[in-house]
């Protein structure tokens, strides 16, 4: 995210942040002779703007991302251990666990899918039958006309 506007690359982050902020304040006219009653507001805006930019830069850095991954992994391990502990306790008391409810949910879902598939299958068979019947009734007059010519024609 660094646009190269800071000329102090390589210096410590605080110096870069400070140089950026002072630079931005100068661009909005906060040099001493141009001070006005809104000075505090403008200083605050400049401060937040630079702080925002550096915060985003930091949150994209490898250092932050690695720390985020580490804390996420730790949180997952902790939560997993808690889940296991709760499950063992619930089992000991003959209570249903979240695994049991997941199992039931999956069974219901599986059954629902099978029923829906069957229904769809039945629907398509019905449609085919109806289409066949409609086709038969539509072609019935034609067949009736050819009926006199013998059964062979109908076959």
């Amino acid at each position, binding site marked *: 995210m660094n646009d190269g506007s800071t000329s102090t690359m390589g210096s410590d982050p605080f110096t870069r942040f400070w140089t950026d902020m002072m630079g931005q304040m100068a661009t909005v006219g906060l040099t001493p002779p141009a001070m006005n009653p809104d000075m505090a507001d403008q200083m*605050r805006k400049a401060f*937040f703007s630079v*702080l*925002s930019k550096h*915060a*985003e830069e930091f*949150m*994209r850095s490898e250092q932050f*991302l*690695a720390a*985020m*991954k580490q804390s*996420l992994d730790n949180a*997952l391990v902790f*939560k*997993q251990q808690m*889940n296991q502990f709760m499950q063992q306790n619930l089992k000991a008391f003959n209570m249903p666990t*979240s695994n049991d*409810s*997941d199992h039931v*949910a*999956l069974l219901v*879902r599986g059954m629902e899918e099978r029923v829906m598939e069957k229904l769809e299958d039945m629907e398509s068979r019905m449609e085919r039958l109806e289409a066949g019947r409609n086709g038969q009734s539509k072609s019935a007059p034609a067949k009736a006309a050819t009926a006199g010519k013998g059964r062979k024609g109908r076959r």
Partner: protein
Amino acid sequence: MATAPETHNPWAAAMPGMDMFAQPMQDFMRKMWAVPNIMQTAQQVRVGATPSRAVYREDALRLLRYESDVEKTYETPLLVVFALVNRPYILDLRPQKSVVRQFLNRGFDVYNIDWGVPADGDRFLGLEDYVGRYMDHVVDHVRERSGCDKINILGYCMGGSMSAMYTALNPEKVRNLMLLAAPVDWSTHDSLLGVWCDEKYFDVDKVIEVYGNMPAEWLQNSFLLLKPVQNLLEKYFNFYDKMDDQKFVEDFMAMETWLNDNIPVAGETFRQFVKYCFQQNQLIQGKLEIGNERVDLGRITCPILNLTAQHDHLVPCGQSMPFNDAVGSKDRKIINFPAGHIGMAVGSRAHRELWPQACDWLGERSDELG
């Protein structure tokens, strides 16, 4: 705002330098007087400005139909599809800032999907359920109610991606498609969210295996951290500046109510969305499969209006704009508006300039009554 009364302070007359302190002190006292009013406003805050009625329910989902005194002009109804991570009333937050009202006032019949809060047992619901089943049932219901073969869809954020997927799978049911800050191409990492979701740092399979559904608090904190200075500092300084302005306080409280009203996302849907969209970018490449069907954006041939936000930190324009090149439609338009992700829905300027344009666009492409 009323200007502060002139100071008749004997100390100020005696010591001119005291003015420097008198004015901020007066401001501070005026703001402190406003505190009880702020507390009252916070308790009485109302969100969801337009009366609505649930006309269809399926599991946790509710389909809301908005009521209005304005006579209907258009036969083709509009279905609003919002993301799964927040409540849908952001599009109808306050009477003066309601996208829903914009369309109602133009004579559209407006519906909105409230996905509801997934329970622990809903962790197995995937995109095939949300897009292939729920959305399809809702669209069929709206079609049946309105007597129209095709309806208009407006998808916001993740709801926009889902609407694009749905339209690609069912092009015969969609008359016009409007996307609002909707990501479809995750190849760029302009957004911080894209960086954080990189598979190198974020093992979504593990998270869902352990947590089941994606917890609302996680989502909320992630969104807050995308702009930490704005969300955790600047916002409150601005609030202090304007805390004696009743209208500002009402809007602020309504927005805070919505921002803090996150809901969990069904685990499997979250996993699929992060894995197949954020990490593998399958949608724009035509590789995404929902159920057993491949989602081919090229199958979309209806008119497209793609509304993108220039200052969007969540869904940068680069994630939305490629949609118009991927579809098979000839009638397609992009409006890149100078606003942020939420500002597109609740910003005063958006309601003055953007939404009237969007209503015109939709009106020209919808069937009129009679």
